[in-house]
C-alpha cells in the first residue's frame, strides 16, 4: 500500500512503462488521458448508525467506506462562569475550534494501524481537513460543550494502488452528507437537541456558497508529463509524486467582486506533501553488453561475479531516477491542479453531482 513499498516489477517492464509515459502525449497502460481518473461508483449515507457516511469503489474492486460519528464532549479549559456574558456578537467571536476535536483513523487491510504508511495517510488527510481552521469551528456548540467528530476511514479491499485519492474523495462525500442534530438549548446551558433527524442540519450547508471539505489529489510526473490518479504500476516509474490538497475558497463578497463572474471556482491550496516514489528502490536493468547470460558465447566470457555494475544510460534499460525533484516540475504539478477549470475543479463538480442520501 505504501508508495515506497517494494514494488516487484521487472526491469524490462519498468523500462517499457517509463518510455510509454514519457512520450507526448503519454500512453498510459490502461489508455487513460493524463488527467483522466478511473471511473468511480459512489453513494452516500450507506451506514444508518452514523451521522454521515459514503462509499466509493473503482471498477477493479478497490473500495473504501467512511463513517462519521459525532459525540458531545465537554470542552476542556472552561472554568465555570467566571466572566459575565458579553452579548451575542462576542459569543460568535468566541466560536473557535481545536484540532483535537476531530479524530481521524485510517484502516488498511493487512497493515497495522500504527504502521508508518497508514499514519502518514491519516496525517495527510487530517492535515488538509484542519488546514483552514474553519472545520473545527463548525463543531462548536457553546463555550462548555463541543462536538467531537470521529472519522473512520476503512479500505475494505486490498490496496491495489496507493489509496490516498480514493480515501480523500470518500471522506469528502461522507463529510458532505454529515448531519448533526439541531440544537434546541440556548447559551451555555447543557446542550439539548431536537430528536427529529429530518430537521438535523448538514455540517456543510448545501446550496449556499460556503466552504466544502478539501480534496487531496495524487499527482505524479514522468519527465515533463503530469499524470493524475496514477496506478501502482505508474507510480513505480514516477520521478516525482505529490499529494496536493485543495479546498474551495470561501466566496465572500470581498473576494468575488474583483473577479466578477469567472468560470470555475476559486481554489485554495491547503497543503502539499511529497510522497517518496517507489521508483527509487527499483532494481536497475542490465544492458545486453554487460549481461553475462546474454549472447551466443555467453559461457565463454563468463564473469565470475554475479553482481551487476550500473553503467551509463542505455536505451531500453531501466535506471532508477536519481537526485531530487526539479522545482520547476513541482511548481508545474501544483499549477496544473489549481488551474481554473482544471482537474480539481472538475473533480469537485463531479462530486457535487453525487446525490446525498
Amino acid at each position: 500500500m505504501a508508495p515506497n513499498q517494494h514494488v516487484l516489477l521487472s526491469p524490462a517492464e519498468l523500462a517499457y512503462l517509463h518510455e510509454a509515459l514519457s512520450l507526448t502525449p503519454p500512453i498510459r497502460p490502461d489508455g487513460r488521458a493524463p488527467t483522466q481518473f478511473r471511473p468511480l461508483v459512489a453513494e452516500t449515507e450507506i451506514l444508518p448508525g452514523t451521522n454521515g457516511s459514503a462509499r466509493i469503489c473503482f471498477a477493479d474492486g478497490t473500495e473504501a467506506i467512511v463513517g462519521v460519528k459525532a459525540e458531545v464532549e465537554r470542552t476542556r479549559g472552561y472554568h465555570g462562569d467566571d466572566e459575565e456574558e458579553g452579548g451575542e456578537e462576542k459569543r460568535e467571536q468566541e466560536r473557535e475550534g481545536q484540532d483535537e476535536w476531530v479524530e481521524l483513523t485510517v484502516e488498511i487491510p493487512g497493515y497495522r494501524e500504527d504502521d508508518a504508511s497508514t499514519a502518514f495517510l491519516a496525517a495527510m488527510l487530517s492535515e488538509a481537513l484542519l488546514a483552514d481552521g474553519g472545520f473545527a469551528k463548525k463543531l462548536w456548540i457553546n463555550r462548555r460543550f463541543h462536538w467531537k467528530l470521529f472519522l473512520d476511514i476503512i479500505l475494505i479491499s486490498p490496496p491495489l494502488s496507493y489509496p490516498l485519492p480514493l480515501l480523500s474523495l470518500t471522506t469528502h462525500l461522507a463529510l458532505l452528507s454529515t448531519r448533526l442534530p439541531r440544537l434546541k438549548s440556548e447559551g451555555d446551558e447543557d446542550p439539548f437537541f431536537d430528536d427529529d433527524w429530518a430537521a438535523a442540519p448538514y455540517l456543510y450547508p448545501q446550496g449556499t456558497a460556503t466552504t466544502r471539505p478539501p480534496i487531496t489529489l495524487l499527482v505524479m510526473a514522468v519527465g515533463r508529463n503530469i499524470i493524475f490518479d496514477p496506478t501502482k504500476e505508474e507510480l513505480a516509474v514516477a520521478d516525482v509524486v505529490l499529494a496536493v490538497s485543495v479546498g474551495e475558497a470561501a466566496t465572500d463578497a470581498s473576494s468575488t467582486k474583483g473577479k466578477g463572474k469567472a468560470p470555475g471556482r476559486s481554489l485554495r491550496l491547503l497543503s502539499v506533501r511529497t510522497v517518496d516514489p517507489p521508483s527509487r528502490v527499483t532494481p536497475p536493468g542490465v544492458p545486453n553488453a554487460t549481461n553475462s547470460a546474454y549472447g551466443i558465447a555467453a559461457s565463454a566470457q563468463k564473469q565470475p561475479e554475479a553482481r551487476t555494475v550500473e553503467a551509463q544510460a542505455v536505451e531500453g534499460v531501466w535506471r532508477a531516477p536519481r537526485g531530487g525533484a526539479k522545482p520547476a516540475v513541482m511548481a508545474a504539478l501544483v499549477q496544473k491542479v489549481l488551474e481554473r477549470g482544471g482537474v480539481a475543479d472538475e473533480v469537485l463538480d463531479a462530486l457535487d453531482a453525487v446525490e446525498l442520501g
Partner: protein
Amino acid sequence: MPITITAPKAVRPSYAAADNASDDSDSDASSDNGAADLEGDIPMASSRRKEDKSYSIVTPGEVITDDPQWMRGHGTFVSPSTSAIVSSVAGTITRTNKLLSVRPLRARYTPEVGDLVVGRIVEVQAKRWRVDVGASQLASLPLSAINLPGGILRKRTETDELQIRTFFAEGDLLVAEVQQLFSDGGAVLHTRSLKYGKLRNGVFVAVSGMGGGSGVVRSRRQVWTMEAANGAGPLDIVLGVNGFVWISKHVETPEALIAETKSATTGITNLEESVSTTMYSSQNDRIGVETMREISRIRGVVTALVENGLRVDEDMLVRGYHEAVEMAMLGEGPDDIYLGGERGEQLAAALTGV
C-alpha cells in the same frame, strides 16, 4: 471530462426481478423467519435467497442443507456435531444428482501439469527460484529446469549457481510450464523450450485465472501472435492459465538467429536444446509509438472483458480487439484507446450481442 462518478447499480436487477416474479409470497416468509433484520438495513441480495433456487450464492459457514440425502462435494464440509452440509467458500451451489458442491466466485489458481503460466520471481534461493503464479503457494523453478546459456545442452556448474541472479532476479517475469505437482498442490515449473523464458518489450496485467468466474480459461492456444491495427506490427500475447497476461511487441524468434550462426550444428532435432541468445536479456528493443498504443488497447480489452464478466481467450480477445479498433475509428477525440467504464460496457455489449 477527467472523472466520472456514477451511482451504484442495483444488485443483479434481472435476477431479483425474476425472484420476485416467481413467487412473492416467499419474500414475505423470509422476512419473518427469525433472521435479524435491523431497521433501515440495506436489503441484501442474500436475504432473498431461497433454498430451492437453482442460482443462489452461499457464504462460508452457511448451512446449505441438513437433509441427510445429499452428499457433500467440492467447496463444502460436514460439520462434526451435526450432519448438515456447510459451505466452505463463497460461491454458487451446483448439484449433480445427489451431490452438492459449491463453485467459488473467486478462487486462486490451482496448478495442473502442462499448464502454461506466467509468473514473477519473488525469491531467489541457492538452486532454485520461487515464482508467484497466483496459486496458494509459490511455485518453484529449479536451476536444473532452465536452459542455460552457452548453446549446447550442458550440465549446470557451480558457476551457474553462483550467478543465479543473472538468469532470473527478483521481479522478473517469465513464461513457463508446470512440470510436476507436489502432493500439497505446489508446482514445479520448467522453461526448457524456446517458447518459454524471460519476458520483455511489453506490459503485464493480472486478471483472475482458472478457478472461478470470468478470466482466462484453458483453451487450445494460450500464446499467439496477432497483427495489430494502425501499422503497429505483430504483437505477441501470452495468456497464462493462471490469469497472468503478457502483451508485447513481437520480436523475431531466435531460431533464425541461431540458424544463421550455427547452421551446421543446429538441426531440427536439437533446436529445442540450443538456447535462445536473447533469453535472459532485460533490455527492451526499440518499440514504436503505434505499437505502444496498440499494446495499451489490448490491455484495455483484457480488463474490459474481465470487468464485464466475460471469459478471456484467443477468440474473445481477437474479436474484442477488432471491435475496439472499430469503436475508436467511429468515435473521435484523442482518448481512443481508453476502454474503461462505459466504453468497456459498450465493448462487452457488442461482443455478447453477436
